[in-house]
């Protein structure tokens, strides 16, 4: 095998994920919607890679050695079978489907739906993004594994599992001595193995251990993620230019780029899977299609298997669902839940306990200078945190508007979690030395960009609506959010979309 094998393998896992999504019931009719193809292609990439790692776990459990045959053949067979199954449910022939897909993709790439000025901006932005990903590709494909943790606790497992052709346990020091050579050890033996398995996949397709090229998987995931974000924003009824601008904001965050270029950590994959999981839940809240729900659960399941804090991030889907399903009572329940959780942690902190490896304490003395450097003065995030704070202030009346509220619940929970960890645990030291604060924030950053766009749009629409009313009075918030999200109704017993058991009847729509 060779680089051709690696290319084939990466594309195969991507195609496998797309085929899985295409075969899910309820998907067929939605690919024609704005952003539908982009969402399926992008989310399919992440789903395919994660499912492939689950396949590796199954192989190892069954005692079958990792090889091109044991991995590529089943994936290829499944891709073909699922693809044909999905195609058979289409009302037209496969050849027509390919023609339509080509037409749709080309139409989207050329910005056909935009007017002349917007189309020029679209093309420039697309070119800018292409340059970015080309630079990142060049870096990933050239540099051997570089950052510290990638070779002390992540790729260590990949190397051993690839060479052994199976998953062998990594254990703590005392267990390692007791095992007498049957178990392995590294700096993070209890860390989940998904990152290592992604690297094993790449090396297996490549046919040799190569700690440079194996990281192309992470570049591919970043590309797929960008495509999925574009699709999600289009589905949220941002026009093509705004959706691409949102994709650019997410894909241009310097720390995100650093984690692509210096791949091998779990933080960026966790951020991408978590973000898409929440976006898939948002789609499910609107569509109630099993396909969206299944995808959300799959992507969410990846979070704890990528990194230990993924358990907390995965849990944050619960507030989003509560707020989405119960628009009236949900925010109160979630607010009360956060308050109880905060009080509980403060009480627990008096006993100086260890929670998920973090030692809690009540000594509130954050390193403000280091925090300011991380979020505001250094270029880790461009203007993300300035923008997030400004948008929260400007759009404060719209934070709990339908369509925005579930994301607000996740972002609020995430920010509280980060604040608690960085201010009330021993992780505070990692703020001062800048080792963890940004990586921990990275898990939430892409979702904050999307939340920011949604809140800003709700605020902008409220200004526009106020300008269009004779008295200059802002219309009711629910009405604005309805226009913003395009949701037909918040209750809509007759409509299959966005049915909420305790929602109020919708106000009359107001044109923006």
């Amino acid at each position, binding site marked *: 095998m060779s680089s051709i094998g690696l290319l084939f393998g990466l594309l195969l896992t991507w195609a496998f994920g797309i085929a899985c999504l295409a075969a899910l019931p309820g998907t067929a009719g939605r690919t024609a919607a704005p952003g539908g193809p982009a969402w399926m292609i992008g989310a399919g990439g992440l789903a395919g890679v994660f499912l492939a790692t689950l396949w590796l776990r199954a192989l190892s459990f069954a005692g079958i050695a990792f090889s091109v045959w044991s991995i590529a053949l089943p994936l290829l067979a499944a891709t073909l079978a699922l693809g044909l199954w999905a195609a058979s449910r289409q009302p037209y022939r496969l050849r027509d489907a390919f023609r339509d897909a080509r037409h749709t993709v080309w139409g989207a790439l050329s910005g056909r739906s935009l007017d002349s000025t917007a189309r020029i901006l679209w093309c420039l932005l697309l070119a800018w993004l292409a340059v970015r990903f080309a630079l990142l590709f060049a870096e990933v494909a050239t540099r051997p594994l570089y950052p510290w943790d990638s070779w002390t606790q992540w790729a260590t497992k990949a190397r051993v599992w690839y060479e052994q052709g199976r998953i062998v346990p990594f254990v703590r020091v005392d267990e390692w001595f007791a095992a007498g050579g049957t178990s392995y050890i590294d700096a993070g033996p209890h860390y989940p193995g998904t990152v290592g398995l992604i690297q094993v996949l790449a090396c297996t397709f490549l046919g040799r251990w190569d700690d440079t090229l194996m990281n192309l998987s992470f570049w591919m995931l970043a590309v797929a993620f960008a495509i999925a974000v574009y699709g999600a924003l289009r589905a949220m009824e941002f026009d093509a230019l705004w959706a691409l601008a949102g994709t650019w904001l997410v894909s241009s965050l310097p720390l995100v780029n650093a984690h692509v270029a210096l791949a091998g950590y779990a933080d960026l994959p966790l951020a991408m899977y978590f973000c898409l999981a929440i976006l898939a839940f948002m789609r499910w809240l609107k569509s109630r299609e099993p396909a969206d729900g299944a995808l959300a659960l799959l992507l969410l399941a990846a979070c704890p298997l990528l990194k230990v804090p993924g358990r907390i991030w995965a849990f944050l889907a619960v507030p989003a669902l509560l707020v989405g399903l119960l628009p009236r009572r949900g925010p109160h329940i979630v607010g009360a839940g956060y308050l109880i959780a905060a009080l509980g942690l403060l009480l627990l902190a008096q006993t100086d306990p260890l929670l998920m490896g973090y030692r809690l304490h009540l000594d509130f003395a954050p390193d403000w200078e280091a925090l300011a450097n991380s979020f505001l003065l250094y270029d880790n995030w461009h203007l993300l945190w300035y923008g997030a704070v400004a948008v929260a202030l400007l759009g404060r009346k719209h934070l709990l508007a339908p369509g925005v509220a579930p994301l607000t619940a996740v972002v609020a929970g995430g920010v509280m979690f980060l604040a608690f960890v960085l201010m009330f645990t021993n992780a505070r030291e990692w703020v001062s030395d*800048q080792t963890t604060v940004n990586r921990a924030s990275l898990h939430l950053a892409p979702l904050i960009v999307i939340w920011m766009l949604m809140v800003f749009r709700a605020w902008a629409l409220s200004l526009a609506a106020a300008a269009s009313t004779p008295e200059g009075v802002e219309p009711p918030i629910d009405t604005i959010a309805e226009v913003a999200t395009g949701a037909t109704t918040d209750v809509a017993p007759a409509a299959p979309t966005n049915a909420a058991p305790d929602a109020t009847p919708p106000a009359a729509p107001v044109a923006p």
Partner: protein
Amino acid sequence: MGVLADRVGEWLAFERWSGASINTIVGGDDVQSLPLPLLLAVSVALAAAGMLAWRKFRPVPTASNIAAAIAIMFAASWFVLDARWTWNLARQVQATFAQYGGKDWRGKHQAAEDAALFEFVEKARAELPATPARIFVASDRDYFRERAAYHLYPHNAFANPGGNVLPPPEQFKAGDWILVYQRRGVQFDPANGRLRWDGGAPVSAQIKLRGEGAALFLIQ
């Protein structure tokens, strides 16, 4: 003009990858008098505040343009930062190509920062059995200890995560290996085949490979 040139010089200073890059991107010089994100954010904030204040005294229809104006200013400022970052990334790619371009996997490691360690570990691997063996790594530097272990996998490498401490002799068994790299306190008596470390009891060992400040031992 001199002050402006100084600031621009700080913002455009090449920030190459370092061990800290995975945690923090400074955005130019390590120390800056006026960080560019702060300057741009304050500029946008002042302009936006001015426009919002102006809105109070102007006819309502102009309000609809304010959000668009703020969005454009924000995006333009973001683009300025992103252009700087892209320029830095392009320079980094050039530097990476100069160091690693056109080399295979082995060649890249021979061109890396730990080339000398990699070369020694490659020689050690030639001495080790084909099947994975238990091998203890000793070095005064965390970097060399962890890095040597990484190069030694899939052998069953032990680089003590707790620090620069080799386990006591009783935890070794015949057939284990020890790789020493720039580590004080390790003494070998070739005449009697005795190895000891940190003043502890000696164990029977055979030296298999010797390098500059480095050695590979087989416990017997």
